[in-house]
C-alpha cells in the first residue's frame, strides 16, 4: 500500500462495506473469485445486531409477522418488484445460512428459530420481531415468552438506555421486569458503549461487574443488560457473567454507536482479508469509467484519488444516503458513482407525506436503483445497462427495509444473488 502501487486489477470489485458488501465479499471469497473490496464505515457501526428477514408485512397495516417465510411469499406475490422477488426462497435461506455459519466459525454464533421470528426487547421498551440474534441475546426472547422474573440492569451515565423505561413500557406484557441502576466498574460520569465493551474483555472488570449485580438478583431467573458484553471476548464474558450470577444473561440493543454493529464489522474486517479479499477499507470509489473491453476502471481514495482499480465486474453495495450510495438534493436523487437511473417520485414534493409517521412510509424510502433478476441495474424500460455491473443491498428500489424490518435479509440475499449472477458472468 505504501509504495504507491496505485494500479490494481481484479475480477470483481465490491463497492461497499456494509452488510450487503461484506456478505457479497464473503460469498465471493468462498467461491474463490479474485475480489477487491472498497468502502467507508457506514451504518454498520450503528447496527443493533438483530438480523431481520421480514418483520412487518403489510407495512400499511403494521402487521407483525410470526412466520417470515410465509411473509416473504406473500410479499413477493403482492410486490413483484420487491428485491426478494428476484430470488427463490431456497436461495434466501441458503444465503442466510452461509452468513450465520461464517459468524459461528468466527466465534460469534447467532441464534434463530429458523422457521419463525422472535420478539426482542429494544432500549425504548418496545418489542421488535426479528429472525436471528447474536447468541448473547439468545435468552431474551424466551424469557419474554415465559415472562420470567427478569432483572434489568442499566448503568449510571449510559445515555439512551433506561431499565426503568423498558420495565414501564412493557409493564402489561412483562410484569416481572425489575429495573436496577448500578455504576459501571471503574468508571464515572458519562459512559460510552465501546469503552464498556472493551473494558469487559478484561477479566478483572467482569469480576467487578458480577459483584455489583449479584446483590440485586434476588429471585430473578434471568438478567438483561445493555449490549456491551465484550467486544472480542463475548464468549468469555457471557460465561463469566452467567457462572458468576448463576442465571442466564442476555443483551439488549443500545443506542448508537452499537457494539453489536462494531463486532460484526470487526469480524468481517479481520476475516475477509484472510480469506483472500483485497480490502481498501476507509476508502471510497470516487469515480468509475467503463473501458472499451467492458471492464471498469475505478478511482479510489479518501479525499483524493490514491488508487486505480480495474475490474472485470463490479457489485454495487454502496448503501443509501448515509452510506453515500445515493445523494439527494433539491434537484433529485442520484446514484453517486455510475450515475445510474434512480427510481424515484417524479416530483420532489412527492418524496414525503405530510404526516411524518404515515403508516405506509414515504415514497422516498422506496426510491433506489432497480435491477433485473440477474441483479443488473436497469434503465426506465427495464433494460440491463451493463452486463458487468450488479447491485445489491439497501440501494435497491421498491423496498422499505426500515418499516418492513428486512434489512439484513435483503442485504444478504441480494448480495448472494448478485454474486451468483456475477460468478456466472465471469465464467
Amino acid at each position, binding site marked *: 500500500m505504501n509504495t504507491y502501487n496505485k494500479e490494481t486489477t481484479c475480477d470483481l470489485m465490491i463497492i461497499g462495506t456494509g452488510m450487503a458488501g461484506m456478505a457479497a465479499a464473503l460469498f465471493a471469497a468462498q467461491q474463490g473469485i479474485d475480489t477487491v473490496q472498497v468502502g*467507508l464505515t457506514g451504518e454498520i*457501526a450503528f447496527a443493533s445486531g438483530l438480523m431481520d428477514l421480514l418483520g412487518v408485512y403489510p407495512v400499511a397495516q403494521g402487521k407483525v409477522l410470526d412466520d417470515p417465510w410465509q411473509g416473504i411469499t406473500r410479499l413477493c406475490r403482492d410486490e413483484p418488484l420487491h428485491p426478494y422477488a428476484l430470488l427463490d426462497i431456497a436461495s434466501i435461506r441458503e444465503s442466510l445460512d452461509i452468513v450465520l455459519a461464517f459468524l459461528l466459525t468466527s466465534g460469534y454464533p447467532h441464534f434463530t428459530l429458523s422457521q419463525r421470528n422472535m420478539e426482542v426487547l429494544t432500549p425504548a421498551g418496545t418489542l421488535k420481531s426479528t429472525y436471528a440474534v447474536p447468541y448473547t441475546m439468545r435468552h431474551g426472547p424466551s424469557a419474554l415468552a415465559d415472562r420470567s422474573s427478569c432483572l434489568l440492569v442499566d448503568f449510571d451515565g449510559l445515555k439512551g438506555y433506561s431499565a426503568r423505561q423498558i420495565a414501564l413500557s412493557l409493564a402489561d406484557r412483562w410484569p416481572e421486569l425489575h429495573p436496577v441502576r448500578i455504576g459501571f466498574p471503574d*468508571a464515572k*460520569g*458519562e459512559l*460510552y458503549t465501546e469503552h464498556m465493551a472493551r473494558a469487559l474483555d478484561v477479566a478483572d472488570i467482569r469480576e467487578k461487574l458480577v459483584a455489583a449485580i449479584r446483590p440485586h438478583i434476588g429471585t430473578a431467573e434471568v438478567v438483561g443488560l445493555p449490549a456491551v458484553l465484550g467486544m472480542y471476548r463475548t464468549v468469555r464474558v457471557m460465561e463469566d457473567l452467567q457462572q458468576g450470577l448463576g442465571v442466564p444473561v442476555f443483551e439488549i440493543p443500545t443506542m*448508537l454507536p452499537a457494539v453489536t454493529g462494531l463486532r460484526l464489522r470487526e469480524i468481517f474486517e479481520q476475516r475477509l482479508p484472510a480469506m483472500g479479499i483485497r480490502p481498501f477499507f*476507509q476508502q471510497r470509489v470516487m469515480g468509475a469509467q467503463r473501458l472499451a473491453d467492458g471492464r471498469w476502471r475505478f478511482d479510489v481514495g479518501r479525499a483524493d484519488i490514491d488508487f486505480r482499480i480495474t475490474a472485470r465486474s463490479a457489485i454495487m453495495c454502496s448503501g443509501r444516503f448515509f452510506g453515500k450510495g445515493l445523494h439527494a438534493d433539491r434537484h433529485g436523487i442520484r446514484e453517486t458513482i455510475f450515475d445510474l437511473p434512480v427510481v424515484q417520485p417524479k416530483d420532489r414534493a412527492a418524496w414525503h407525506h405530510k404526516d411524518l409517521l404515515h403508516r405506509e412510509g414515504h415514497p422516498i424510502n422506496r426510491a433506489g436503483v432497480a435491477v433485473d433478476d440477474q441483479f443488473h441495474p436497469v434503465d426506465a424500460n427495464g433494460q440491463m445497462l451493463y452486463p458487468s455491473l450488479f447491485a445489491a443491498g439497501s440501494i435497491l428500489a421498491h423496498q422499505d427495509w426500515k418499516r418492513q424490518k428486512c434489512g439484513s435479509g435483503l442485504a444478504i440475499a441480494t448480495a448472494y444473488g448478485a454474486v451468483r449472477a456475477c460468478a456466472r458472468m465471469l465464467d
Partner: protein
Amino acid sequence: MGLSERARACWTEGETNMFLAYCAYGALIICLVGIGYRMGRWVVLPLGPEAEDTTLAKRALGALGAVAKVLLQPRGLIVLLRTLFMEVILQIHILRQDPRRWVMHMALFYGMLLLLLMHVFDDRITARLFPDYASTLNPFMFLRDLLGVLVMAGVIFAFVRRRADRTLRRTMRGADCLLLVLLSGIILTGASLEAVQIISPTLFDEMVGDYMDSDDLEEIAPLKAYWAAQFDVAFAPMPSTDDPELLDEGRSLHEVSCATCHSRPGSAVLSYPLALALKPFSARITDIGLETALRYAHFLIGCLALALLPFSKLFHLVSTPFSLVSRALGSAATDRPVNRPTRRALGLDACTHCGVCTLHCAVGPIFQVIPNSDILPSEKLHSVALMATGRSSAHAYARLSEGSFICTGCGRCTTWCPSGLDLQDMWAASISDLNRSGYPQSHGWMRRHSASQWAEILKTCPDTLGEQAPLRKTPFRLTDNPDTFWACVQCSTCTNVCPVVAISEDPQRDLELTPQQVMNLMRLQRKETAIGSRMVWDCVTCYKCQEHCPQGVRVADVLYELRNEACRRLTPAVRASDPSSEQHIPATDLGAQKNGA
C-alpha cells in the same frame, strides 16, 4: 632592546609612564579579581533540581573534592594531562570536526598566545631565550608581523563564518563583536604603530642620538640617505638617494651602529604595506603626534582586553579548558549530585557562542518558522544563563519555555560542542527549573484553567501573531471552514473509539469535553470554549477518531489545529502576564504536577 625598555626610554614623562604602568597593573588586578569572581560563581549559580537544597559551602567542598579526586588519582591525572594536551594544546577535537574551523581557531589562539609570550613579554622571555633579540630584527620582526597577520586572518575568518551562515548571522551578539573588535584593535593599532615608526623621521633622529654618538649632520647624512633608500623613512625634505657612494658610506655606518638591531622593514609583512601607504602623510602624522597616540592606543586596548577578560568571551581561555577536562573525566550523570550545578555553571561560562551546536541542531530549521531564538541551543544557553543569574524577566522565562520544549533531546549539540559542555544535561536541568518556576510546556500550561476560563482569557488574545511572524499564519484552516464539520452527525463514534476517553474514569470531569462535543462546538462556531478543554490537550494523537469517523470529519487534525491556535494566541508575552504564571511549585509537588494530577 625590548618594547618595555623602549617605552621607558622614549616616554620621557614620568607621569605617562606611571599612568601606563597603573593601567597595566590595574587591568591585571581587575582581570585576576574578575577571574576569581567568575570561578567563584561556578559554585554559587543554581541550575537544576540539585541546586535547591544545597549551600555554598557544600558546593565549594564538593568542587574541591572533585578536583582533589582528579589530582590524587593516577587515572585522573593521566586524563587531565591527556585532555590538556589533545584538546587544549592541539585541539584535535576541533580538527576532527571541521579542519577549517581548527585553522581559524589555531590562528587566533596561537597567534595571540605567541604574541603575548614573544612580543608583550619580549624582554622577559624572548630576549632571554635569544640574547641577540631586537624587535626590529629578523626573524623576530617578521615573525611578529606574521603572527599579526595570522590573528587578523583568524579574525576575518571568524567574522566571515558568522556572517555567511544565515542562522549565525541572525544570532550574532555584541559579545561576538566585542571580541573581534578587541583583537583587531590590538593587532591593527600595533601594526599601525609599527608602520608609523618605520617611516618616522623623528624616531630616526632620536635613535641616531642614542646610538650614534654624533650630532654632526654631515656625518649622519649618508646614514640618512641609506635609511631613506632602504628603510623607507620619510624624511622631510627627502635626502637624495642617487649617489651610490653616499649610500655605500651610509651602509657602512649602518652596519656599525644599526644593523645589530635592524632588519629591513620589508619583512614586517603586516606593517610595511601600511607604512608605504602612510609615507606621503608623514609630516601630518608627525605634527599630530600619531605615533604617541597609537602607542597609547595599542597599550590601552591591550589593557582593556586584559581587564575585560573575565567579563567577555575571552574568559573562555580559563573556563573552556576546565570544561574540556571535566568532560573527559565524566559527565553530569556520573557527578555527585552536589557537583552537577557546578558543572552546569562552568558550562555556562565555557560557551564561546561559536554556534556549532546551533548549526547541527535537529530542530534548527524550526527557527525559520517560529522566530524564537531560544529554540537554538547557543541562544537558549544564553537565556538559561540569564535565568540562572537571576536576570530574567517573566517574558524571558516564557520565551525560554517555548524554545526549550521544542528541543527533542537528540544530543547532537552535546556531541558537537567544542567546549565540552554537557548540553543535554543543561537542557534537562533548565527544563526542570522552568517547570518548577511555573513555566511548563503548553500541555501543562493549559491545565491551569478550565475550558470556560480559557474561553474568557482567549477573548483578550486575538490571533494576530501572523502579522509579526507571517510564517506562523496557518496555510489553511479546518476549524473556521464549515465544510469541515457539516457532515458531522454527532454519532459519537469518535468519542467511542478514543482511548483517552476510555481510560478516563470520569470523562466529563477529567476531559471536560469529549471529541464529538468538541466537533459540535466547532459547528456552533464556539471554538474558544473548546480550545482550553482538557480533551484537546490530553489527546494522544492516535488518529482513531479521524480514521473511524463515518462522515470523513478530520477530527484529529482539528484537534491539532486547536492546539496550534492556542500556542499562537497565548504568546510568551501573554503567558508572562498571566497572574498564575509566577506560582512556584516546590520540588516535592513536582511529581504531582508532572503526572498531570
